């Protein structure tokens, strides 16, 4: 079922595309919001979503990604890969300067990837495991040598992983206490201007930007408004022009989209493809029984959740692989809403009404409502559920210590199963202390084998076969509940043009954006 809103979005996206033909105008400042207030703006040092969103305009990586997740040039003009898939050579642009006027060169790339991110950035460390060396061949050529072929490597240059930071500022310093952290220096189309804590972060146009004629805007103001209802009002009364995903409650979106001059897009999240899941503790209690987990899948009315809570945005997933992920297996048997079947499964396993604890995700009203809906769904097939509210700190700790039966979460898929999906199911990823690894405690040797093989298999066809096989096993075992591939809508005024031009959406630069006013 598609709601009118979902249709509206498709239509809006189409008009947005056709508008590209117009001649861009210069000038104007765009007002948008950021939620929550980021802790800092130096990417790599901080990987929070709000930091990425703001700093994506200040910092750049070697490549960008289209909405189909194809790499396109940014700081690297071109790159080549050796036939064995082990050596990647990047040729850098030669006309790039940092915001402080220093020249950007290969030393910056080597420093960023090999020193800065290795020290600070866990996402980068995950990729660095597969890298043997990073060397500057000359001032504008860098060579990455992998230990084995690593399928997702070309997707690692998104701003959150290997973003470029200035070597001349950070080399040899205590990164975290560097003065420059308060005044981040990047190569992007916008420069840091001012941060009035609790109120606004201001970026201004980088007049010396190396891409001819860009950016169009004079600046960006990221307003900090902690209350969702206030953010919606800020859009309604014209204070802000863009509401990036997650900044307004889903319930407000239908009302906002009915306003004049308002467009919505779900694009820009292809790289992340946020996937909502229900952790189910595979170690103990009723949830350790496969039949119980299947029953949960049948009991949940995921269509209802999508239509009521998410305004019809997003997709009910087939199984462990999202539809944006590569290598989805379409032949799997879907778990439809079927309470009768759920009850049968529970009878079959002899569920005795043991209480099951549910942890909602403390990320706002929609998630709270969703937990209430799931709780009710499960109660109706006879599962005793108690919701245990936590805040972010409590949620992190409970998951990190595996102290839960059912728990909501959502995970980014990062475009490639080896980056975003396998981490949830590999038994080598079972480790206390993190809410992002194999928290459910699923252990299956076959699955481990298939995922590991697929990550380094070459070429793509071979990977596909392995991934298809692993999906069939997962579909039967249901290590976690697959809730929804989230649709993250961005609401904006239609006269804001070229807002989303890449697969990382508003996390990418606003350099192509212009105001038709």
């Amino acid at each position, binding site marked *: 079922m598609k709601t009118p809103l979902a249709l509206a979005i498709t239509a809006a996206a189409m008009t947005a595309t056709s508008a590209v033909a117009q001649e861009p105008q210069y000038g104007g400042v765009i007002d948008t919001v950021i939620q929550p207030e980021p*802790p800092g703006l130096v990417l790599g040092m*901080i990987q929070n979503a709000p930091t990425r969103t703001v700093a994506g305009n200040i910092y750049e990586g070697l490549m960008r990604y289209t909405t189909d997740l194809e790499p396109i040039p940014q700081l690297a003009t071109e790159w080549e890969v050796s036939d064995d898939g082990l050596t990647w050579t990047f040729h850098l642009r030669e006309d790039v300067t940092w915001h402080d006027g220093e020249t950007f060169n290969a030393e910056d790339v080597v420093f960023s990837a090999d020193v800065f991110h290795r020290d600070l950035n866990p996402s980068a460390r*995950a990729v660095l495991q597969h890298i043997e060396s990073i060397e500057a061949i000359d001032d504008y050529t860098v060579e990455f040598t992998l230990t084995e072929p690593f399928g997702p490597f070309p997707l690692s240059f998104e701003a959150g992983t290997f973003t470029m930071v200035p070597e001349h500022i950070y080399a040899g310093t205590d990164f975290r206490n560097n003065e420059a952290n308060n005044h981040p220096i990047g190569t992007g189309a916008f420069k840091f201007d001012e941060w009035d804590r609790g109120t606004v972060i201001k970026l201004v146009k980088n007049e010396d930007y190396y891409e001819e004629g860009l950016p169009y805007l004079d600046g960006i103001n990221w307003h900090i408004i902690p209350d969702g209802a206030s953010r919606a009002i800020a859009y309604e009364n014209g204070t802000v022009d863009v509401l990036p995903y997650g900044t307004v409650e889903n319930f407000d979106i239908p009302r906002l989209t009915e306003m004049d001059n308002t467009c919505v897009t779900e694009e820009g999240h292809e790289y992340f493809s946020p996937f909502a899941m229900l952790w189910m503790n595979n170690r103990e209690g009723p949830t350790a029984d496969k039949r119980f987990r299947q029953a949960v899948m049948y009991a949940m009315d995921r269509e209802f959740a999508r239509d009521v809570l998410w305004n019809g945005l997003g997709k009910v997933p087939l199984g462990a692989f999202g539809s944006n992920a590569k290598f989805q297996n379409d032949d799997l048997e879907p778990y439809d809403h079927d309470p009768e079947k759920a009850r049968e499964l529970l009878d079959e396993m002899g569920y005795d009404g043991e209480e099951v604890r549910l942890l909602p995700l403390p990320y706002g009203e929609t998630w709270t409502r969703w937990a209430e809906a799931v709780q009710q769904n499960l109660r109706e097939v006879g599962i005793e559920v108690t919701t245990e509210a936590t805040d972010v700190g*409590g949620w992190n*700790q409970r998951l990190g210590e595996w102290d839960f039966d059912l728990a909501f979460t959502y995970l980014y898929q990062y475009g490639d199963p080896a980056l975003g999906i396998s981490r949830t199911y590999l038994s080598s990823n079972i480790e206390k202390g*993190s809410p992002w690894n194999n928290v459910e405690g699923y252990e299956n040797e076959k699955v481990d084998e298939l995922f590991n093989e697929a990550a380094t298999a070459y070429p793509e066809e071979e990977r596909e076969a392995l991934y298809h096989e692993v999906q069939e096993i997962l579909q039967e075992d249901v290590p976690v509940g697959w809730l929804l591939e989230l649709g993250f809508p961005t609401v904006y005024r239609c006269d804001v043009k070229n807002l989303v031009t890449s697969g990382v959406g508003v996390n990418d630069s606003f350099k192509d954006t212009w105001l038709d006013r």
Partner: protein
Amino acid sequence: MLYARLIASRLFKAVIVLFMIIILNFFLIQLAPGDPAAILAGEAGATDEEFLRQLRERFGLDQPLYVQLWRYVSGVATLDFGYSYRQQMPVLDLILARLPATLLLTGTAFVLSLVLGIVAGSLAAARVKKPSGSIIMALALLFYATPLFWVALMSVVVFSVYLDWLPAYGLYTVGAGHTGFALALDVGKHLILPATTLALFFMAIYTRMTRASMLDASQQDFVKTARAKGLKNSVIQRRHILRNALLPIITLAGLQAGQMVGGAILTETVFAWPGIGRLMFEALQQRDYNLLLGIFFFSAALVIVFNIITDLVYGLADPRIKGGS
């Protein structure tokens, strides 16, 4: 001289209370599940052991609790409130940046509620048993019984959304680039809704208190004396009854002024007012221990300062206090 010495002894006691508060809160916060490192890691969406270890080491969370406490307390003794884990700024800077906004909001609300409350309360007392007096009291009761956040929400919907008279949130219009008088005007406009909302509840309290206190005072013998002099009723109300009725209100107001900082949390959240209450709520959710402790320290210090001010004002208002010796 006596005055100065007594205030010094009050301050000394205050310092002891503040240190007790620090210690209590320190342990209280430790009881909360999760630590700042885990939350920062969680927000990042990706983490590994190395990352958590780095964070904990940086924040000193790898040290035994008593070492952490000692470090914190000795830091505070030198007015070093530490570093906010999440905001990556010195706590003192963060608090001092937010404090003026809170003081502006609560100060305005305080003055507004006190003035309006006393006026309404004395009107109601003078018109006791008349319809107009009953209406005032009914309204006061209504404001008292209405959840503050609900009024806040409703007033935003009405005054900002439908009527579009007043800005709905924030301290000033971002990007308008106002300076000087224009800025003050702009801030003033932003102040109206949050200050009024916050003031309503407290105004209700003062109204009821003033009325009760005035009715009480009007039973006093000196009121009869004043009437026997042939004074006009209005003069008696103002000069004799109200002045005496104000004494208990000063005490109450002193207590409330401190509590308003707490009450501002809701208002600041709804109106996106960049104050200390909101900062506190965020710090709590982030387990930003240093920041949270710092805010507790400052709000407790504010309460104590208000109490001392109250005593001073009381001393001015009531000659019996100062001249006791």
